């Protein structure tokens, strides 16, 4: 089980959290004018990175706040935790720790 450092409550077990998928995916500003291909891309296409992955988590059994995590998908190391809306920290996303 992951030990996730909630930015508000501190370190808690993974079972207290809900997973929210990849972070930093912006909804198209004008859905009416977005092509079907772009809309499908927004809905379904994810980077599925082998390396540092930016993802959303929600502390469902705790403070119920959303936040972002940078996690390495090979080692499962949590490399950064930052608030929703903040820019992602810089990593070499191809690196294999």
């Amino acid at each position, binding site marked *: *089980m992951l030990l996730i450092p909630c930015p*508000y*409550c*501190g370190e*808690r*077990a993974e*079972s*207290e959290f809900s997973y929210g998928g990849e972070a930093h995916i912006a909804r198209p500003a004008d859905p009416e004018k977005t092509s079907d291909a772009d809309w499908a891309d927004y809905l379904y296409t994810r980077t599925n990175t082998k390396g540092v992955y930016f993802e959303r988590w929600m502390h469902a*059994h*705790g*403070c*119920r*706040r959303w936040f972002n995590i940078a996690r390495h998908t090979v080692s499962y190391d949590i490399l950064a935790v930052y608030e929703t809306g903040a820019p992602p920290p810089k990593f070499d996303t191809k690196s294999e720790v």
Partner: protein
Amino acid sequence: MVERYLRQSPLAHLGLDGRAQAVRGESGVAMSEQPFRGIVNLRVQPDDSEAMAALESALGFALPVEPNTTAASATALAFWLGPDEWWIVTPGPEPESGPNMAVTLRTALTDRRGAVTDVSDSRTCIRISGPRARDLLCKGMPLDLHPRVFPSGCCAQSHLAKTGVVLHLIAEDGPTFELYVLRSFAEYLWLWLEDAAREYGLTITSS
């Protein structure tokens, strides 16, 4: 307005008062229900110093801003639940204690940004004490309850036996925990606790 004679705690049907005993020496865990507390959910931005000051003078103490901590007076207990969310708990059992607290807080906030919601009847409180209380909770909880990490006065929202709870360590001596559980999960959680506490020697005490 709640009619007193219609008011029932979520565990009333278990007849716990009829099973209540004095704690004997070999008992590892004592449990009781502490029903009818007033609970008011308070949302306010902690950087709104005017609102925080108004709430402090209404309550008689400052809201805890340190994560997972509580603050208390003789008539109210404040839980930190999130960066802009608190619970204000009143001892009850008068049905008016929750709504009255909500009015007090709403009056203090006046037209400042925030929200006050009376959620008294959503939960009941279970008190767990005794030398094995910590072992009992650790059976179903992912929290680190070691006194070094979770000292007296701490609170945390987590899950116990898959049920969402708010846990509060009210005294290191004993130790004595209180947990707040949703009304509809109260029976399930009580029966789970009774079963889990059997090996430690359980005494049910009166509320």
